[in-house]
């Protein structure tokens, strides 16, 4: 117990420092927020945009310099009174639809949008066919039992303790 004690202390200290570390990381991610309301709007738009430098992160989450610049761009455009859809369009015009986390519905993205529904329909159709063809087959195999077999099965079902 005496040996365990310092170790436990250290562990507890680590645990206590964890939130502090997380807060520090948060502070680094957040830019200088002069106006919290504006900053919240900036982040709302930034969360809709993919960072092209680290492609699986949003511009809101990324630490890349480009993400910082683009957040600054969003901030300035909001200050100029531009609407969020206008800002998203601005980004898509320069970096492509790829930056939009919600891809627009157009000819190129039709498969992306309709593919899952098409697959669901296909699976539903396959299931329906399977169920429809399986039923008569089962009934037929059940009737193949002879009278003696049927009687034996009946006996087995009625007395669960009995071993054949």
């Amino acid at each position, binding site marked *: 117990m005496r040996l365990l004690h310092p170790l436990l202390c250290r562990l507890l200290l680590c645990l206590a420092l964890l939130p502090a570390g997380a807060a520090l990381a948060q502070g680094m991610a957040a830019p200088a927020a002069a106006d919290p309301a504006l900053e919240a709007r900036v982040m709302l738009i930034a969360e809709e945009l993919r960072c092209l430098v680290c*492609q699986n992160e949003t511009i809101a989450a990324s630490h890349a310099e480009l993400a910082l*610049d683009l957040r600054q761009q969003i901030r300035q455009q909001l200050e100029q009174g531009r609407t969020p859809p206008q800002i998203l369009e601005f980004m898509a015009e320069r970096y492509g639809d790829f930056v939009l986390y919600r891809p627009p519905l157009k000819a190129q993205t039709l498969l992306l949008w309709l593919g899952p529904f098409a697959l669901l329909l296909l699976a539903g159709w396959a299931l329906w066919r399977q169920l429809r063809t399986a039923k008569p087959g089962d009934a037929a195999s059940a009737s193949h039992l002879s009278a003696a077999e049927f009687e034996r099965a009946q006996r087995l079902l009625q007395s669960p303790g009995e071993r054949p």
Partner: protein
Amino acid sequence: MRRPLLRWLPLAAFLVLLAFLGIGLQLKPREVPSPLLNKAMPVFSLPTLAQPAQSLSPQDLRGQVWLLNVWASWCVACQSEHPLLVDFSKRHAVPLIGLNYKDRRDEALRWLGRYGDPYRSSLSDTDGRVGIELGVYGVPETFVIDREGVIRYKHIGAVTPEALRDVILPLLGKLGA
């Protein structure tokens, strides 16, 4: 399974999956096609690196086929393509314009002094604003612009000898450079 054909369905589905995986591995997700292709070069004007009092705009190059190369002294990949650009500028009359992206002037000038300056002129995009207009997301990037000021090609990453020989030079020829 009453129908023998149905027995092969899982294997067929697996092969289709495998084919998609194979195609997926061949793709280069880092090279995002630019929506600016076949669109007019954005309008901007920037001070030149050599003489900050002077400025240059893409409009000044109207009527010529030219290349815009985005570079920075802090960019490691730029060093690998740089000898190729220096060589290109010696062999060809096509104007090669540099866009010095988010760099410090003194460091940019020192970098050109060390590795050679292939650019007819370099523009200082200190805050990266023009980079955003051009959809730049990784340095280096190289644009081919035609006589009408339309972006005809964008190369992402360091220009390789193969890309220059197989894509950029034929395109320049086609555009009548």
